[in-house]
């Protein structure tokens, strides 16, 4: 992986990003704006499941309201995230936080996809019964925790030393 990161760092696109110092902070800021959209969307759907907000709308309506924003923002996150990897390959790819984050993102996307499919298939059943089950509520909390952990791990890429001996950072 280190070899790949080194090779990527030498590509012309990576070099172009590295020489424009404003580029990384700008991309990171766009990344954070989109995290705001994702996190708030998940949060609103969760609040609806708990009945703490938006009770004038059904769960299906709430998910339909936030789903498209969630997926669109995830798309931008993928692009801006990829640009950050290309711009700083060693910093990103050689950090444990990064790979833990990617694993959790995969989990988050799988949960969101399954949830939307299940809701589309048995909408009424969800509204009347499943929304009140403790399994649904636990899954809602778990989902929010997954996305919050993704944010934490994302920030920890800058501080991979917190993992001590587990850190992947090459010793300079």
């Amino acid at each position, binding site marked *: 992986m280190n070899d790949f990161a080194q090779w990527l760092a030498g590509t012309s696109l990576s070099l172009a990003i590295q020489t424009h110092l404003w580029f*990384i*902070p*700008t991309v*990171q*800021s766009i990344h*954070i*704006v989109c*995290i*705001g*959209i*994702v*996190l*708030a*969307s998940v*949060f*609103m759907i969760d*609040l609806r499941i708990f009945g703490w*907000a*938006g009770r*004038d*709308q059904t769960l299906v309506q709430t998910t339909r*309201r936030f789903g498209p*924003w969630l997926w669109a923002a995830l798309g931008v996150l993928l692009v801006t995230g990829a640009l950050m990897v290309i711009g700083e390959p060693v910093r990103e790819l050689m950090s444990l936080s990064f790979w833990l984050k990617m694993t959790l993102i995969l989990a988050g996307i799988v949960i969101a996809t399954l949830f939307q499919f299940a809701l589309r298939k048995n909408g009424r059943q969800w509204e009347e019964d499943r929304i009140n089950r403790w399994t649904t509520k636990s899954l809602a909390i778990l989902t929010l925790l997954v996305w*919050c952990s993704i*944010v*934490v791990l*994302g*920030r*920890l890429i*800058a*501080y991979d*030393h*917190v993992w001590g001996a587990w850190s992947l950072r090459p010793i300079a």
Partner: protein
Amino acid sequence: MDLAATLKAIESSGIASSIRDSLYAFPLIESSHVIGLTLTFGTIAILDLRLLGLASVHRPFTKVAEVLKWTWVAFGITVITGMLMFITNASVYFSNLQFRWKMALIALSGINMFIFERICGRNVHRWDSDKSAPPAGKVAGILSLILWISVIFLGRWIGFTTTGNQAPDAPVNLDNLFQ
């Protein structure tokens, strides 16, 4: 009271030094700051987009605005974690131009919100179910989005302009903080 001395005193406080001495405290506080600020921005954006008629248009504005109580919770987390980061290196942050602009823009969004409440909030019943707010409300929505996105950009820039920096020796020019 001497400002520079006050900032130094804040930096040498027990809580500031224990955050600095810990390997985990600052990264975790910063991560909580990001969670708080993203939720603040995201929930405010829901309302701004509703004002502009770009989202949740079939829902009355006052219903959408119920989200604001969660915005305040998230904002509270962001402010507390922000202050904890500030005290670890108070004089550097205070002398940082991006930091000053960021504080100014947060204050401006507060003023924007206050003016909106005064102008549009009073007759909300007249446009509550309209697809978008009256012009003054749309202006408030656009301003809010621009201000908060700028706050996010400035916040990120603080991280790139303060690391390893020393606070300047020159005294703070209180007549012009943005120079």
